[in-house]
């Protein structure tokens, strides 16, 4: 058993085999092998407790079939099921997704990272710059000239409507 502690001091107990899906955790455990029990506690900083919960759920789902995923030998039905499950899993608000991306990045879980990135890009897809700015809470600080002339000339094709 391994204990993960989130930044708001909540504890999560996970089987070592399950947590091994995080390459970071696997390395840490490998380094500490043979030492005291206290060393099986891992702090996951700058992540609030909602995220470890989600990450662990993700781990458990993937733990059941790691080899099959790696070698693409999964049956069609199973792959379909997993796809559906992932779609549901990633169907949350953009803030949670950002947190998930951060967590996946620091814990080094490539499939989770890619999945979350893809979902965020799905949310930003097919929207105007204003909408994207609103969703991502980014303030437009360009001057009028920049916005009207300079930037559109850089990638001219993007602003034409013919490539819908």
């Amino acid at each position, binding site marked *: 058993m391994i204990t993960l502690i989130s*930044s708001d001091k909540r504890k999560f107990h996970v089987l070592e085999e399950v947590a091994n899906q995080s390459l970071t955790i696997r390395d840490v455990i490998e380094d500490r092998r043979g030492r005291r029990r206290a060393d099986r506690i891992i702090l996951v900083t700058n992540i*609030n407790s909602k995220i470890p919960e989600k990450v662990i759920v993700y781990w458990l789902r993937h733990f059941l079939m790691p080899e099959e995923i790696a*070698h*693409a*030998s999964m049956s069609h039905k199973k792959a379909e099921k997993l796809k559906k499950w992932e779609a549901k899993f990633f169907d949350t608000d*953009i*803030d*949670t997704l*950002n*947190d998930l*991306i*951060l967590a996946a*990045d620091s814990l080094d879980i490539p499939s989770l*990272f*890619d999945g979350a*990135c*893809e979902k*965020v*890009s*799905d949310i*930003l*897809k*097919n*929207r105007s*710059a204003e909408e*994207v*700015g609103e*969703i*991502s*809470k*980014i*303030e*437009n*600080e*360009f001057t009028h000239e920049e*916005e009207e002339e300079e*930037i559109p000339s*850089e*990638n001219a*094709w*993007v*602003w034409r409507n*013919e*490539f*819908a």
Partner: protein
Amino acid sequence: MTTNIDDLIDDILLCVISFLPPKDAARTSILCRRWRYLYGRCPSIAFDQRNFGGDGEFRTKIFLNIISSTLLFYKGESLEQFKLVFNANATYKLSKCPTYFDSFLRTAREKNVRSICLEMSYASSTVLHDKTNKPNTEDEYCLPSYIFKCASLQRLILKDCTLGTIGTPSLQNLAVLHLIRVEGSKQSIQELITNCISLRELAVEGCPLLAKLQISLLKLETLSVRCCHQMKSLRISAPNLFSLNFEADLFNKLDFNLLKPEELRCVRLCLCQQKEYINGIFFELPKPPSSLTRAKEFTKFAMELQNTKNLSLASSSFEDFAIEELLQFAPLQLHNVKHLSLKGWIGSRKAILGVSILLALMPSIESLILEFTENTTEKPQDSTVTDEEPIDFPSIDCLNYTLKRITLRKFVGDEAELILLKHILQHAAFLDEVCIGWGKEKHVNLEDINELKNSKSIKIIDE
């Protein structure tokens, strides 16, 4: 505490941007100062002509110009991915503007590209090869040889491309190579494969002209060879092979040679004849050569599969396996096969015999999946199974203790299927579970199958 998207570091944002379609990705540059130059560093450049409407000369040229300016203004250190998909039915063929193409590939190479994916799909994706749809080979654009000298390349996926002269490839770091409907001189494909010494994953599909292939790669783990109908000789020497997917005309004098793959654990074989493929399953009755030659071919094949645990066989009809000589080949027993999956038509006593023979050959099966397909053979089915003369099925006593689980797919419960099911149930004493997925029709109620009703210990899952 929540994370705003703007709090993420550049590298992560670049990953998010690389998932966006090119137009949306480029538009992120107007969001704010920080994002303005992010797009220029996005490590993935992927364009699909189908999303750019129109395929006339004018549109195609604009499309090509957009790609070349995107490539030119790329500011990152190394390019992760460069992907191009061209419209299948474009009226303006790309072969008319080879210079664009050459410059793309040259620029990509200068940017130390890691993954190149080129798709020039002519045929629809379900039919794996159909020459009538292809333009004359003279019009086709041949890939320049220098992309085969790109040392940074790790992944190369080519669909519907034509290889020109490839010189001496030097792709030391290439780990993944997919050649799908690739044409070229006979030696070029072989040369390419031989020289990629670090390959881990190789797929050769729909190269109908390929007659001989020798694969000798130390690191190879995954191999898929499909739809190469002229294949006369395939020699594989890959000690670390893990997964093999091979579909070919097995009984058509194929010289198949697989050298000691000790790791091989996952095999998918498809016995098939020629021409039409629909989702990889083949529907046509084989022109039967004498059963003894077939038995020998199968033996040769089986000898190579001694370490295999999962075996799946698909055939137009199980009659293919009704070769009683198989039982006499002692070394043929595949003791390591634990999970067997069979797919094909069953509707005659001969087909049932075929299945029984296969089962008798694999004495350690724990789970068995039977998928029944419709009769697609040329033989009309006038007579029902009951009219035929009974054949003695070989004993499958060996399954007594091991078989735990049977899964039936597209089960309709006609006579032939029931005979087979009863035959298996009679012998499998320690069966735990029977899982039934019904087909379109349903000729029988589960309660009517005595063998299932009598044994209380079997769990029946009715899907």
